[in-house]
């Protein structure tokens, strides 16, 4: 589990820097999650299947999503439901998940194939992945908090 979390974190850190010029750091102050993952406001999920199955989730405060889109498109956004904001986060997850699972496939021959991303926002959102253990990594940017959550079954990476 540790390897995949760090691969995903390093990839997200690189892509946020390259795509949007935003610095991502680990945030030791965020505690551990209970059985349901509480969203910070804007989330993207990519699930995968292969020799192992699972889910990669990027979650962030709406202000981070608005800034990512603003830096990519060079214009200000005020609503997180703007299709360009949603598309930016969805594409960010697509690139990060693609990059980290390619590395996993190369190292371990897992044959992982990614599903298309889902992106969503709402109030008091909880995300559960029944019967699977997941690990959350708390992170931060100068615009707000970000969380990474990884869950998978059928293997130990």
């Amino acid at each position, binding site marked *: 589990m540790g390897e995949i979390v760090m691969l995903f974190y390093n990839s997200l850190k690189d892509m946020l820097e390259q795509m949007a010029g935003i610095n991502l750091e680990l945030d030791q102050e965020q505690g551990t999650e209970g059985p*349901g993952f509480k969203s910070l406001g804007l989330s993207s999920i990519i699930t995968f299947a292969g020799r192992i199955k699972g*889910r990669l989730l990027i979650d962030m405060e709406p202000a981070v999503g608005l800034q990512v889109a603003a830096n990519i498109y060079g214009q200000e956004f005020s609503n997180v439901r703007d299709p360009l904001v949603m598309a930016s986060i969805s594409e960010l997850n697509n690139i990060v998940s693609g990059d980290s699972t390619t590395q996993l496939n190369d190292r371990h021959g897992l044959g992982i*194939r990614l599903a*298309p991303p889902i992106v969503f*926002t709402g109030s008091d959102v909880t*995300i559960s992945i029944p*019967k699977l253990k997941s690990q959350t990594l708390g992170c931060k940017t100068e615009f707000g908090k970000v969380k990474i959550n990884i869950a998978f*079954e059928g293997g130990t990476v």
Partner: protein
Amino acid sequence: MDVRYINPFLEATVNVLGQFGVADVRRGKLQKKNKMQVDLDITSVISLVGEVRGNIALSLSEKTARGIVSTMMMGMPVDTIDEIAISAIGEFTNMVTGNASITLSNNNLSVDTTPPSVISGKDIFFIISSVETLAIDIETQHGKIELNIGLEM
């Protein structure tokens, strides 16, 4: 989206509900959406990879979810959506997608399903497909289930 890819999911949802013993299951209205705005409390999402690639989301209100989970558990009262109920909703989605995958593979389309994620909250705005989403209402004795299909075909 080709009807050959839609019908297996629709039939699977109706069949699985029937197997649980949920009564008055019938197909309601169908609409095409670019985005998926859900005014229902709970959405369970499963993805497909392989020759058919995309996301399937089943949305339902908390009341409908409690009713269906109760029927799944032989009529045991379900007062809140707790971890067991979430697991049951995930399993319901698993069964629907698994059944539909069998029909697709009988039509020589190889697909694999991913684990379900159950998302609950208020006023949730989703994008499950960059192409288009087809939403089909399925009416039951416990209320409406919205079957959202976003396949990248």
